[in-house]
């Protein structure tokens, strides 16, 4: 037998005890052919196209999970940023398109559909403006639709008007869903350097450089990496830690590569990318904070956290890059506070603060993610937190993002609960020096120099 019993047991243990799973199989769909001169006409075409193209997605993914014995937790869809379609009509309210996406998502059985999105890093077009204005209503009246807006890029700099507008939208989305701990904001990501092939929510879109339909796969497995790091002796040096993470990342990426190839073949669409992200879930042990602590940081958020996270992020990519030639998406380690039980514990212990999360943003996959903040946080404060995250991305040429949830009616000491994989989180204190003047200046933060790199 070419496969040893030890290798078989290792794979089984990864799945049964260490939460190895394929986090998502995401079907990317172009909606370029759904343009119509009215919003309702477009909504009908969008619904029909999703129903037609994604009909078999869930059953095929379930079949693959059974055949290989590796769970596929989520099946999702990403679509062309809706703002691009919206330019063709003149309706002010684009919520009917979101409603059509939601209805189709429910009927084909996917848990989220991403792409109620706009890219406005350099300027806001008419369709973009109407889409952004429709986000609070779209998120309040749908369950599965996710929205994302790109407000900055290394090539264009930062659109400060868009950032302030998005801070207002975050606030409006929070108010519209105040009765559900402002869950609308959990489905809204504001990006710098958004990628076009991300399979993870809430930021998935099907970019303009993509084929008509592609399958992108997001792998996970923080529990597997933690188990490997924990099994090392306490005096193992960091080279050994990096090597162990790299080897493990290779294995879990290979599982993702296999699933992506199979899914593409069975669905008869092109294989897109494998996204090697360590994505935590609220399940015990499925935590990125646990890996950081297993590496020797006393509590996630304490000194050394940025070092540990940087090493983890780099080693995951190195191992993953060996495992697939189709590396893409966000690829790295996610640090969503509410979705990671040990990160929540670190916040509650006072070890992890918003400022430390911002530092971690510089070395992780995307950054400020699923952070509950007081409901009365000023719009200008939210805008400046977003722009700080974007500044890190713009200057360092990486994707960064902010998914902030001002929980209306709640303050520091309270908790917010979003349910399912979105988890629950304590409300984190926010630095109250708002920087109102800076946030209201507007204009553009010019594109940075890409040399003189200190």
């Amino acid at each position, binding site marked *: 037998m070419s496969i040893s019993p030890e290798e*078989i047991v290792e794979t089984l243990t990864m799945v049964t005890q260490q939460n190895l799973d394929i986090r998502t199989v995401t079907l990317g769909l172009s909606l370029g052919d759904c343009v119509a001169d009215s919003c309702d006409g477009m909504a009908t075409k969008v619904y029909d196209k999703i129903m037609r193209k994604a009909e078999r997605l869930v059953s095929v993914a379930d079949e693959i999970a059974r055949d290989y*014995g*590796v769970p596929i937790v989520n099946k999702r869809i990403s679509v062309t940023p809706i703002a691009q379609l919206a330019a063709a009509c003149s309706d002010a309210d684009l919520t009917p398109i979101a409603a059509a996406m939601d209805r189709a998502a429910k009927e084909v059985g996917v848990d989220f559909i991403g792409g109620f999105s706009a890219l406005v890093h350099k300027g806001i077009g008419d369709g973009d403006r109407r889409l952004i204005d429709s986000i609070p209503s779209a998120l309040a009246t749908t369950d599965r639709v996710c929205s994302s807006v790109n407000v900055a890029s290394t090539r264009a700099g930062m659109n400060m008007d868009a950032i302030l507008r998005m801070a207002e939208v975050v606030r409006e989305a929070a108010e519209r869903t105040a009765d559900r701990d402002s869950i609308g904001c959990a489905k809204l990501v504001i990006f710098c350097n958004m990628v076009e092939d991300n399979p993870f929510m809430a930021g998935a879109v099907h970019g303009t450089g993509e084929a008509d339909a592609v399958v992108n796969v997001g792998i996970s497995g923080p529990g597997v990496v933690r188990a490997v790091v924990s099994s090392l002796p306490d005096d193992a040096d960091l080279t050994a830690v990096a090597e162990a993470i790299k080897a493990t990342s290779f294995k*879990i990426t290979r599982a993702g590569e296999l699933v992506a190839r199979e899914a593409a073949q069975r669905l008869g669409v092109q294989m897109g990318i494998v996204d090697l992200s360590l994505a935590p879930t609220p399940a015990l042990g499925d935590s990125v904070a646990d890996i950081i602590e297993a590496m020797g940081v006393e509590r996630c958020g304490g000194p050394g956290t940025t070092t540990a996270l940087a090493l983890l992020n780099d080693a995951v990519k190195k191992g993953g890059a060996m495992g697939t030639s189709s590396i893409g998406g966000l690829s790295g380690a996610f640090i969503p506070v509410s979705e990671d039980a040990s990160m929540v514990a670190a916040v509650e212990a006072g070890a992890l603060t918003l400022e430390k999360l911002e530092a971690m943003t510089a070395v992780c996959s995307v950054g400020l993610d699923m952070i509950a903040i007081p409901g009365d946080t000023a719009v200008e404060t939210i805008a400046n937190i977003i722009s700080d995250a974007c500044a890190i991305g713009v200057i360092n040429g990486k994707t960064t993002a902010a998914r902030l949830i001002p929980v209306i009616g709640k303050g520091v000491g309270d908790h917010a609960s979003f349910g399912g994989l979105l988890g629950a989180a304590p409300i984190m204190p926010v630095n109250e020096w708002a920087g109102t003047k800076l946030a209201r200046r507007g204009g553009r933060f010019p594109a940075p120099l890409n040399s003189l790199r200190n």
Partner: protein
Amino acid sequence: MKTRAILSVLGEDRVGIVAAISNALAEAGANIEDIRQTILSGVFSMTMLVTVNEDITPFQNVQARLAEVGERLGLQVTLQREDVFRFMHRV
């Protein structure tokens, strides 16, 4: 269509495990290519390389039959396509 798969069985040792598993495979038209079995501290552990003839019994039906045997004997029985191990453990 013939599909190579890895069958793993784990649980408390008792009389008739190999017989029951082999029997289920034979009835499904699946061929055993290789077999390794040990008992560690009373825990029965067996891995098999099998070829499932899907023209006789589809893969998922073989999985269902083996799951029934596992349930009857109180064992964890897993049948997975072989590629997943090849992909994960070989460069």
